[in-house]
């Protein structure tokens, strides 16, 4: 299986504050990895390093040049980054996912607009292409941002806390959609909700300053303890020693 990127003894820090230390991590084609860990443990920092927003302090990050020229990454940030009252249409927001391959002088071609319309249809946003975000529900907004992330047909999709969008009716559809997308792209999903994501992902990465890869979608409290990655799995729980697969 071809790898997409590889981190070798990578460290990342904000000034003096080391957030990630000596991380070794490989992501391959068609991976679906849940990135979990306590708040402030470095989950978002990991995404920032992959996106090139933060330069590694030590070590390196190598992309597979054939699959990933450093550009072919889709990114779904936490909802708070865009202003929902901004006067920009759903179609234009989705089109912004193509800016990666365009220069600053950008015209969208008919092909680009057709791509956007296809994504709008695929994500069930038909009829909303001229709406602005404040006319949509939380789940619909999430789909718009997902559309922006996938319109360029990336090889790697990064999702930052997609569960934050409060719309339980769409939650299952959303994970079904991800499963579908996973056949053509690797997915890295940051979440604090281990219970919910464990039934959808293929493996875990526990991030708490260091990174431990767990090659299964079932994870126990002991595993988390051993990885030095304390999170509130018990909150879902029956009794300790819970295997999460049981309860969804």
């Amino acid at each position: 299986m071809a790898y997409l990127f590889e981190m070798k003894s990578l460290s990342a820090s904000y000034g003096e504050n080391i957030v990630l230390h000596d991380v070794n991590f490989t992501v391959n084609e068609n991976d679906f990895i849940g990135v979990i860990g306590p708040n402030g443990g470095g989950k978002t920092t990991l995404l920032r390093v992959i996106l090139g927003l933060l330069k590694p302090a030590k070590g390196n990050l190598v992309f597979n040049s054939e699959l990933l020229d450093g550009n072919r990454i889709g990114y779904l940030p936490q909802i708070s980054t865009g202003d929902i009252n901004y006067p920009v249409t759903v179609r234009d927001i989705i089109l912004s996912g193509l800016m990666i391959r365009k220069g600053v002088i950008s015209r969208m071609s008919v092909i680009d607009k057709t791509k956007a319309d296809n994504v709008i249809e695929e994500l069930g946003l038909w009829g909303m292409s001229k709406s602005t975000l404040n006319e949509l529900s939380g789940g619909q907004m999430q789909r718009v941002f997902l559309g922006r992330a996938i319109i360029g047909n990336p090889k790697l999709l990064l999702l930052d806390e997609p569960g934050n969008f409060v719309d339980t009716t769409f939650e299952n559809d959303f994970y079904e959609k991800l499963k579908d997308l996973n056949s053509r792209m690797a997915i890295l999903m940051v979440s604090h909700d281990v219970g919910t994501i464990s039934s959808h992902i293929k493996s875990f990465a526990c991030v708490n300053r260091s990174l431990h890869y767990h090659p299964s979608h079932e994870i126990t409290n002991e595993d988390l303890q051993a990885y030095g990655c304390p999170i509130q799995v018990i909150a879902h729980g029956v009794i300790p020693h819970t295997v999460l697969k049981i309860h969804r």
Partner: protein
Amino acid sequence: METSIFQYSFIIKGLLGAIFASITAGLAGTYVVSKRMVFLSGGITHASFGGIGIGYFLGINPVFGAAVFGILSALGVEYLSVKQKIREDSAIGILWAFGMAIGIIFIYLTPGYTPNLMSYLFGSILTVSNADIIALGTMSVILILYFGIFYRTILYISFDEVFARTYSSYVDIFKYITTSLIALTIVLNIRMAGVVLVISLLTIPPNIAMLFTRVYFKIVVWSILSGFIGTATGYVISYYAGIPVGATIIFTLVIIWVAVKGTIQLIGVISKMNNSSHFRHSKL
């Protein structure tokens, strides 16, 4: 004969002033209103008064001093907010008063009479020179080209800066350029509306436009149109009534906004009443 030539050039000047003011204020104002930068723009405006004072003191064109002050304060606030060294609204509040203070001190220190001071505070078409009109015209061309060529880049950076940073390393450069152009737009329009009123020239037209549309590009077009109607009407009224032009323009724009909003709401209420009476009829 002389009066008619004077009147003729006065009308041309007013008309060109109105056109260029609405184009520059429409383009810059849509950006300012969409990005919620109204307070920042107010700060830039008042900070530029410091440059006006220094201009008087040094005997250079006060507009030039205002431009330097306006751009430096705009870049300063952007820089501070990027580095997050200070709360942005506090920085603006300090700059706002500091600029005014510098202006007042230097005007006080300027020996003799300071001509046209009131026109900088409250605006006056009488003191608008041909050079001012040419400067506003040039600014219109620059803004049309800038927003036309980089439309999507500017739109997307201002909508979602965090996401824009994932694909572009030009985010900060564009922010600095756009903010500088807005500062220049404000300074050049001070001659028309004055330091105290110019911010409304930027903010009212986009708010009229947003009563009709929520699409950025259309807001620009409607802003320019409504800005022109307000500016030209205000100009004519001020000429015949002999009242200050800046204040009259702002007054006219607010009246337009209220009238349009009122009409839209009235139409809404009427169509609701019609619908409900239809509904009652159909039930019967």
